[in-house]
Structure formats: structure tokens, C-alpha cells
């Protein structure tokens, strides 16, 4: 599915990540933690091919990202739902259109899919905000809209970068619950977060593997979690 083998990534003249290997198995649930600036976002970008490693190899669904052309990258990203920390919407389009954007660009915006869109918006609790513009949404609503957009294509993998970074505790629990539900549907989940309470809560609901980036290396987190 997604396999990183002995990768390194240099940034700003120095090595940000080094000797990292990871295989995301289907249906697995991973947390990625580490201090700010440790390279969590960079790691996620390497996982969906937005960045190319300086050394080592990244395989997306059996293909080396270095061998993929831009169309190949685009097709791979349709199989990976990404929730960015800053969400990134098209601010001139209503929430419903933003969430449906992956369907639109892949030519799958059929009537059936539009029906699924309504269900999806209700699932993330945004049914009543479908016609609102992204700047009109609260932080939590933006995160939920981004999650809905990430999963509308029914991707095999969901990568979320600090999905609860801008929301209160109650909303973070709700978002976590949505991600746990997705995992129960068979999706592979990787969440980058520095919120240890979120990880502790999640471990009550799901079999999660916790990884930590420390000193440029990826380690399995200890029992303190």
C-alpha cells in the first residue's frame, strides 16, 4: 500500500529525516507524534508523494514515486485521502462543492455520488452547512469538511496532519470518532499529532500503533503513551 524504505529527506541544507522505514498495512491505524519541527508534516508529504525523498524509496500501491509521472501521482492521490492542518479549500466554492471536488476532478460526480455527498455531510455533521463558504466555517467545521473531502472517494488510506489542532476537546473527540469509524470500515489511517491525550483516548477504541520522530529517526513510542 504505502511503503517507505530507508528514506532520508534533506531540508534547508540539513538532514530532516534519516533512515526511516515504514510499511502501512491495509486496515492499520497509526499515530505519528514528535515535537514541533521534527518533520511530521514532511513525513506525511513523503507518504503521499508530494515530496520525493533525498535517499531511499517510497512505494505507493506498488509503484516507486520516482518512476511516476504527474498523472501517475494524481491517480495515486485519488486513493489517498489527505487532511491538511490548514485544510486548504477553494474559498469561492460552497462546502458541498469543496467536499465533492475529488469526484468532480475524477469525473465521478454522478447523481448517485451526489446522494452519497449528502450522507457524508450529515455523517460529519455539516449537512446544514452545505451551502456555506469555507471562510464562514469554524475551525472544527473546516476540519470535518476536510475529512469529508478526504474520504469521499472512498480512499484506501487516510493521512491526517494535526486534524484536531484547531478545535476544542469535544470536537477533537468527534473527529477522532470519525477516523476510528473509517478504520473500522477497513481504511488505513495515519494521524500526525502532538496531542498525546488524543492518542491515549484513541487507544481505548482502536488498536493503534504509535510512532515518534525523534532525532530525525522514526521510533516506536514507548509505554508512556
Amino acid at each position, binding site marked *: 500500500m504505502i511503503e517507505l524504505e530507508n528514506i532520508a529527506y534533506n531540508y534547508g541544507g540539513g538532514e530532516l529525516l534519516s533512515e526511516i522505514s515504514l510499511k502501512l498495512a491495509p486496515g492499520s491505524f497509526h499515530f505519528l507524534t514528535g515535537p514541533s519541527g521534527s518533520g511530521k508534516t514532511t513525513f506525511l508529504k513523503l507518504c503521499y508523494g508530494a515530496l520525493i525523498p533525498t535517499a531511499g524509496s517510497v512505494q505507493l500501491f506498488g509503484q516507486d514515486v520516482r518512476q511516476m509521472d*504527474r498523472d501517475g501521482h*494524481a491517480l495515486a*492521490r485519488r486513493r489517498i485521502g489527505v487532511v491538511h492542518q490548514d485544510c*486548504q479549500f*477553494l474559498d*469561492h*466554492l460552497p462546502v458541498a462543492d469543496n467536499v465533492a471536488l475529488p469526484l468532480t476532478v475524477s469525473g465521478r*460526480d454522478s447523481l448517485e455520488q451526489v446522494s452519497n455527498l449528502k450522507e457524508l455531510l450529515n455523517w460529519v455533521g455539516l449537512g446544514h452547512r452545505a451551502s456555506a463558504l469555507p471562510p464562514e466555517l469554524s475551525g472544527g467545521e473546516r476540519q470535518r469538511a476536510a475529512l469529508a*473531502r478526504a474520504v469521499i472517494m472512498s480512499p484506501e488510506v487516510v493521512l491526517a496532519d494535526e486534524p484536531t489542532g484547531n478545535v476544542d476537546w469535544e470536537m477533537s473527540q468527534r473527529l477522532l470518532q470519525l477516523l476510528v469509524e473509517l478504520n473500522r470500515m477497513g481504511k488505513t489511517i495515519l494521524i500526525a499529532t502532538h496531542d498525546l491525550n488524543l492518542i491515549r483516548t484513541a487507544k481505548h477504541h482502536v488498536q493503534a500503533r504509535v510512532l515518534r520522530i525523534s532525532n530525525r529517526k522514526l521510533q516506536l513510542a514507548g509505554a508512556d503513551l
Partner: protein
Amino acid sequence: MIATVAAGDAQADRVVPPTGFTARLTLFAAGTMAFLTVFALALSLASGRLAQRWGDELAQSSTLRISAPAEQLDAQTAAALRLLETTPGIASARALSDKEQRALLEPWFGPDLPVDSLPIPQLIEIRETDDGYDSAGLRLRLQAEVPGAVLDDHTRWRKPLERAAGRLRLLGWVAIALIGATTGAMITLAANAALAANAQVISVLRLIGAQDSYIARAFVRRFTLRALAGAAIGTVMGMGAILLLPAAQDEGGFLTGLGFTGAGWALPLMIPPLAAVVAYAATGAAARRTLSELA
């Protein structure tokens, strides 16, 4: 891809936010350039007609000038007319009357010119057949039989005039090519500005799996339609301005003949689709370049 542009994709169109500045720039540039193209086209077509007219009028006529003492003028004129009648390739030859010769001189000397008292040469107008005549042979015969005759077959007038008209026509086409290139350059600038302003949109589209062809199509379609609309407006205004020019008159010469005739009015209608093709190519190239740079 042209078919896709024509067919449209309402969803794809909405993906790119409307950008007022580049929209106005594209409309204005396409409109202005189309307006100028109409005039360049009119200039080129009018030059072509002028060259044709000058060629037709001068190619099949010649003038014989007889300069001789007054007492010999009539005899030499009669001899020249007899000689011309028997020359192959000459359809007709006619001595101009005093009135006609006075009319020719009137612009320079006024209406009261005493032709009878002046040693004015006699002019003979020669009309050729389609095959024409042997001017060198005729000159030799005239030299022998009518010593005061000088043959002017208009070659020295016709050639430079035709050449000048040809250059004007070429100038018109060069102007059209330059206008097309300028239109392409201006639309490329507008497209580059729009692409740069929408880097965030491109980033989001790529994040969700949009292929570059989809992203490019959204921009290309928008700029192509803007150029088409702007050029249509400019063309209509240009054709209206041509209609308002004075009608072609003999007294007005070339300038009043600047315009379209008959089926020529259909030619400016090609300008908007051509502007759209230029915009399509220019925006497509700009989009491909920008998308590869953003990779």
C-alpha cells in the same frame, strides 16, 4: 481538447475563481486587437483591389505621342493611325480630340488654355487585344514611318504602381500577423498572472488528485472564451467603423476605397475564431509551463 473547450464543463469552470483583472485584460486585448485586425484586413484587401485595378487599366492601353511641326502633325497622325490599324495585337487606336487633350491639361493650366495656339503634341490612345502587341517592333516601324512618334506602353508606370500596391497588401498581412502575435503575448501574460494568482487553487486540486490536463483545461477554456467574446466585440466595432467610412469614389482614390466588398465582408467574421485559437494555444502553453514549474 478544442472539442472539450467548445462542449464545456460547468463544474470545471467553477473550479477556477473568477479573476476580474485578467478577465478584463483578456477581453480588452482581444477586442482591441480584433478591431485593428479588421482595419489591417481592409487595408490588405483594398491594396489587392487597387493593384488589380491599376494592372487592368494600364496593362491593356498605351499612348502614342506625336510631336511634329504644326503643318506635319495631321499627316503624321494619319500615318500613325494607319500603321496602328495594321499592327497585330492592337484592338483600336484613336486620336484624342482637342477637347479631350484640353481636359487632360486643365488641372495644370486651367480651363482657358488656347490649345490651337500652342505646340501641343497629338495623343493617340491605343487599346490592345488580350494577346497584346510587340512594342519593340512597333517602335521600329514608327521610327521609320512616323519620326515624331513616341510610344508609351505604360510599363514604367504600371510596374512601380503594382509593386507599391503589392507592398501595401503585404504590409496589411504583416500587420495582421503582428497583431496575432501580440494578442498571443498579451493573453499569455494574463494567463500567467491568473495561474500565479491561483497557485493555491492548483495546490488544492493536485492534493485531491486532479490531473494537470484537468487543471490546464479549466484555465484554457476560460481564456479561450474570453478571447472569443472580446474579439467578437472588437470585430463588430471594427466592421461598424469600416461601414462609416466614406464610400469609394474616383475622386477619393485609394483612401475612400478602404473597406470590404461583396463576399469580403465575411472575412472579418473569421477574426473571433482565430483569436480564440491564438488564446487556446497561448494559454495552453502557459498552463503547461506553469504546472511543470509548480511540480
